[in-house]
């Protein structure tokens, strides 16, 4: 049977949602949780498409005919009249109560042309408390024609009152080999596909971004080089780098993310865990680092990086934060490859 959901992985979630459409038992609210780039938005859009496609021959399958089916053309483009996408505005990092109120008004009206009014809330963990509370009543008693789909990195970031009103689907990263196979199918050469699949950590959306934006890979390379040269460096050199790093807060956040995934690998190796590491291209150095540091020291670095990320969001002085980070980082000699 042809599968028009066209989604990489998450077969169990697709099957379940398909059943919901086919049996007409769609819940009024879903929460799709999973790390960024794992496929939450794509899954939500496909579900909206399956719910509203009018030419579907198999229940639960959208027809996928972009030429003749308005629903199958406009929903993936997020341009359908009965589809609302709610997310933080570009210049702000929170989802505001006004956006929710506007949506509630739309929801009080019957659908424009399709069967359901589908509202997709992207990154709902960015909603401030007022916005989340404004949605509560609707989330509990949604109109019969409304389907609400929330997405968030983890359910724990949301109010417990929100979570308890949704059916939760937790999307996990796919295995790197699945992403790799998919990239190869798209015509990416094997070497590159393997590297990207590993760095993406099994998140197809992130993999696509890495594929499209060469700068992301270059930046990763650069930052890992920096980390290597900093490990044996003196305090003065480290502080000079901290000063440079803290100039651009967004860049600093991304840098810490890259280092975090690297140190996580070191920790895994130090613990002698038999799992695939993310930064497979740097396996040799990671092994070496893991040999020199014990598990508890590697773990300390990981937790200090995580701690720094949290503090960065809480608007702590970036320069002081970077300096503390480097003070905590162990001095390691002789890993230069």
């Amino acid at each position, binding site marked *: 049977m042809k599968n028009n959901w066209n989604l990489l992985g998450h077969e169990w979630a697709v099957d379940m949602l398909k059943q919901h459409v086919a049996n007409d038992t769609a819940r009024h609210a879903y929460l799709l949780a999973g790390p960024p780039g794992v496929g939450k938005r794509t899954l939500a859009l496909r579900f909206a498409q399956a719910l509203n496609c009018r030419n579907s021959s198999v229940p639960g399958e959208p027809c996928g005919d972009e030429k003749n089916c*308005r629903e199958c053309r*406009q929903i993936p483009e*997020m*341009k359908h*009249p009965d589809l*609302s*996408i709610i997310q933080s505005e570009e210049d702000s990092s929170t989802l505001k109560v006004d956006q929710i*109120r506007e949506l*509630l*008004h*739309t929801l*009080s*009206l*019957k*659908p*424009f*042309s399709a069967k359901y009014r589908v509202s997709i809330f992207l990154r709902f963990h960015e909603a401030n408390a007022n916005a989340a509370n404004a949605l509560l009543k609707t989330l509990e008693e949604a*109109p*019969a*024609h409304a389907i609400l789909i929330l997405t968030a990195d983890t359910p724990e970031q949301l109010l417990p009152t929100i979570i308890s009103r949704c059916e939760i689907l937790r999307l996990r990263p796919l295995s790197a080999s699945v992403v790799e196979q998919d990239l190869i199918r798209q015509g990416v050469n094997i070497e590159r596909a393997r590297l990207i699949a590993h760095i993406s950590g099994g998140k197809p959306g992130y993999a696509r971004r890495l594929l499209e934006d060469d700068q992301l890979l270059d930046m990763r390379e650069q930052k890992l080089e920096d980390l290597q040269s900093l490990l044996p460096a003196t305090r003065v050199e480290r502080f000079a780098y901290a000063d440079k790093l803290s100039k651009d807060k967004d860049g600093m956040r991304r840098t810490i993310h890259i280092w975090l995934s690297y140190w996580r690998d070191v920790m895994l190796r130090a613990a002698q865990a038999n799992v695939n590491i993310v930064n497979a291209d740097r396996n040799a150095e990671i092994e070496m680092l893991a040999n020199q540091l014990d598990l508890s020291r590697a773990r300390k670095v990981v937790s200090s990086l995580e701690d720094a990320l949290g503090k960065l969001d809480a608007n702590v002085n970036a320069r002081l934060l970077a300096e503390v980070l480097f003070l905590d980082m162990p001095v390691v000699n002789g890993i230069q490859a």
Partner: protein
Amino acid sequence: MKVTVLQENLARGLSIVSRAVSPRSTLPVLANIMIASDEGRLRLSATNLELGITCWIAARIEEEGSTTVPSRTFSDLVNTLPADQVKLSLDTATQTLNIRGGTSTNDVKCIDAQEFPPLPVPDLKGAVQLNVADFKEMIQQVAFAASTDEARPVLMGVLVQVEKDKLTMAAADGFRLSVRKAVLGSSYGSFNAIIPARALNELARIAHDGEETIAMVVPKGRGQVVFRVKDVELVSQLIDGTFPDYHQIIPRNYKSRTLVSTASLLKACKQAEIFAREGSNVARLNIKSANGDMQPGEVEISATSEETGKNETIVEATVDGSGVLIAFNVKFLREVLEVVKSPNVALETGAANSPGVVRPVGDDNFLHVIMPMHLG
């Protein structure tokens, strides 16, 4: 597409449909007006997904076609063109509309008409035929009482009920209720719908008294209502939900019935409002029954404001029953008196804490209920 139209027709059509344009929408195409050739005429449509307006204007069609034009640009441009022929021609490949009027030629970038949400094509057979003047009066008497509070969407609409040859419209916002009945020219199947008050107000604006009838259809299962006036069609999404049973709110009996001149009571209310609006809009009505045969009854309307001062107006009245001291939101009282058409109005009151009913004298088709306020 190649079309020639008269500037004045196009400008009029654009001013009608542009009311439904939503400039700040997540769908860019909704900021546009769709133009399409349609059986020898040019069809203009705009929608904000809640309200859609379509207007047909006379045109000479040389080549069929359709596109969507940015509303602001199009309207502003057409308004500046000389009152003569305007030539519209579309380059389909680049979706650029060339607009020629007088000596000016303009190229406007458009969005493919395929992206525009399809407006329903209603079957006007079996549509309820309404007299324009009567229906506009009904809208005027009811729609103002609808709520503006998003928290209860159902109350933001007007309940429209058709049963055989009877038409009833009702709106309420939790503090007041307006009900207006009318008898239709012929008999129809019964249905009811909650229509957003905004859509009805827009309809009243579009329909001109000279035109004979408004046709109203509620197509089955679409969740929409369609009104057709001559060459304009207005589509509104219906509000989903059940309208509260308002019959329970209408008091069955009263202690006193006060007959007053509509104009003098309205004037007294306007005066009281000048003071009442500073505070919480409270006006006190002291209704005094006749003292002996020679003296008429009266209503004393007063409002007090801490800052502005106070006011008191006495209006002559015929009071049937005992006197009462009651307070109302004077804005609500003024608004209903403004839509009462009869020269005299009856105010039916019970205790100071039970709702008052306003009815035009000699007209059983309209009634208005207002909740009282604390005397304070």
